[in-house]
């Protein structure tokens, strides 16, 4: 066994032999001089996210969906952008909330613009529904991950489907997708979803949740996320999609209200009260 901590959790050379850098016909190695040296790597499309957006939080209520994203764009721990809008409206029945890499988000924005334009060419009036947008995004994400060159995002698609019903579904960089009455990406999956599920565990509960309560619920989630997610912010946009009026309304530049940091006094370590 190799006891060097650097090698923990890695395939051992004893077992698998040294890594063959010729695999996949390494072609992006800088110069001829380094060819055939140990520094040769296979083609690496793979990036890491640069400027990132934090959680998207969304919940269904009896007459639609409420979704929120904060306005922060982080560059590592640096507050890089302070006026980001990470929810995009596509046509008249879809909103896409995007977290993860911001440049990939802007690329998606362009793809969805083109999709909408193409759709408008073909049809008399816009026929592009949220379910179609979701399926399109799933295809884009899945194809890119299959080329080992992913778009580093997690999205929540909300709106109306072809039957005019309320639609809410998630899709991410792997092409993994699912629907649920309460969806959140990133840290929101750990700290937002439990709060949302207290009110909407299943579709039956959705029928009992009023619009105003749903908005308050999502706003509470954004507050809790601001308390605990270091890469989040207290300024955010909120979107309300209403089935009965067929309207998509944005409330931009909201702030977390009624913050109380009293709890922070007693916290040390991982949050348990210390003697």
């Amino acid at each position, binding site marked *: 066994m190799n006891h*060097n*901590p650097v090698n923990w959790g890695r395939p051992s050379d004893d077992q698998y032999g040294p890594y063959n850098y010729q695999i996949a016909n390494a072609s992006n190695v800088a110069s001829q001089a380094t060819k055939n040296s140990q520094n040769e790597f296979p083609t690496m499309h793979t990036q890491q996210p640069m400027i990132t957006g934090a959680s998207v939080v969304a919940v269904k209520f009896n007459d639609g969906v409420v979704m929120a994203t904060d306005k922060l764009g982080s560059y590592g721990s640096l507050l890089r952008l302070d006026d980001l809008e990470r929810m995009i409206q596509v046509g008249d029945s879809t909103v896409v909330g995007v977290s993860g890499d911001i440049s990939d988000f802007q690329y998606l924005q362009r793809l969805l613009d083109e999709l909408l334009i193409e759709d408008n060419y073909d049809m008399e009036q816009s026929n592009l529904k949220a379910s179609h947008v979701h399926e399109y995004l*799933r295809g884009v994400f899945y194809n890119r991950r299959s080329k080992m060159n*992913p778009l580093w995002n997690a999205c929540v698609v909300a709106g109306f489907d072809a039957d005019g019903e309320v639609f809410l579904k998630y899709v991410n960089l792997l*092409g993994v997708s*699912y629907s649920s009455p309460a969806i959140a990406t990133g840290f929101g999956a*750990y700290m937002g979803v439990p709060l949302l599920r207290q009110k909407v565990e299943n*579709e039956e509960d959705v029928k009992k949740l009023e619009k105003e309560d749903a908005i308050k619920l999502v706003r509470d989630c954004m507050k809790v996320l601001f308390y605990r997610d270091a890469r989040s912010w207290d300024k955010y946009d909120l979107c309300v999609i209403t089935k009965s009026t067929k309207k998509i309304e944005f409330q931009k530049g909201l702030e977390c209200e009624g913050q109380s940091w009293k709890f922070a006094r007693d916290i040390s370590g991982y949050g348990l009260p210390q003697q």
Partner: protein
Amino acid sequence: MQAQNTLLNTEYSTDAQTEPIEHRFNPYQDNGGTILGIAGEDFAVLAGDTRQTVGYSIDSRYEPKVHDVGDNLLLSANGFSADGVQLVKVFQNQLKWYHFDNNKEMAVSSAARLIQHMLYRKRMFPYYVATILAGLDEEGKGAIYSFDPVGSYEREQCRAGGAAASLIMPFLDNQVNFKNQMDPESNGTKRRPLKYLSLEEVIQLVRDAFTSATERHIEVGDGLQILIVTKDGVRSEYFPLKKD
């Protein structure tokens, strides 16, 4: 960025890596869940739990993964959910073209062979899924076909796949194929004769299998979706499972 060996100043730092650490994108994920198919004399069932997970997080409590793909065929691909969804989508598309080209329904044996080819063409970058196909054969008898991720397949009386397959499969051996069961009169010389189970018996077995798996496997639970195929078409049943 600092060089590697100045970051980790351990007693091993002299033999630390000189090449940079490669952070590779992992195109796969385990989304948990379990599926189970049983064939009867004139029916077949394909069941799956409705929970979708990643790690310790439950993404969705209701994301059905057993699909009625048409032509009296049921299909489920359990494992990496994005691959599962894609496989079913590609299959449904191929099935549509089969109808255009041949103007007839696809037999379950043909569907099985088609799925083998769909899986094997991605031999070097596989669909990370356990696949089960259910339908009725040419004689109207229930048929279950099970596949490994790269397309090797077999027709069976029953098969469990996915996260809790190892918990359920021996139970099925015992209760469907009567393995290790003897005729009590024979003093251990004769095996209990095989017989087809009724639909009611099969559904009860499926429910028992899933409640047991839910009890002992964290990635299984929330809901049980059972699709039943008979000569009259496809029927669906849903039973809640524990949500913890």
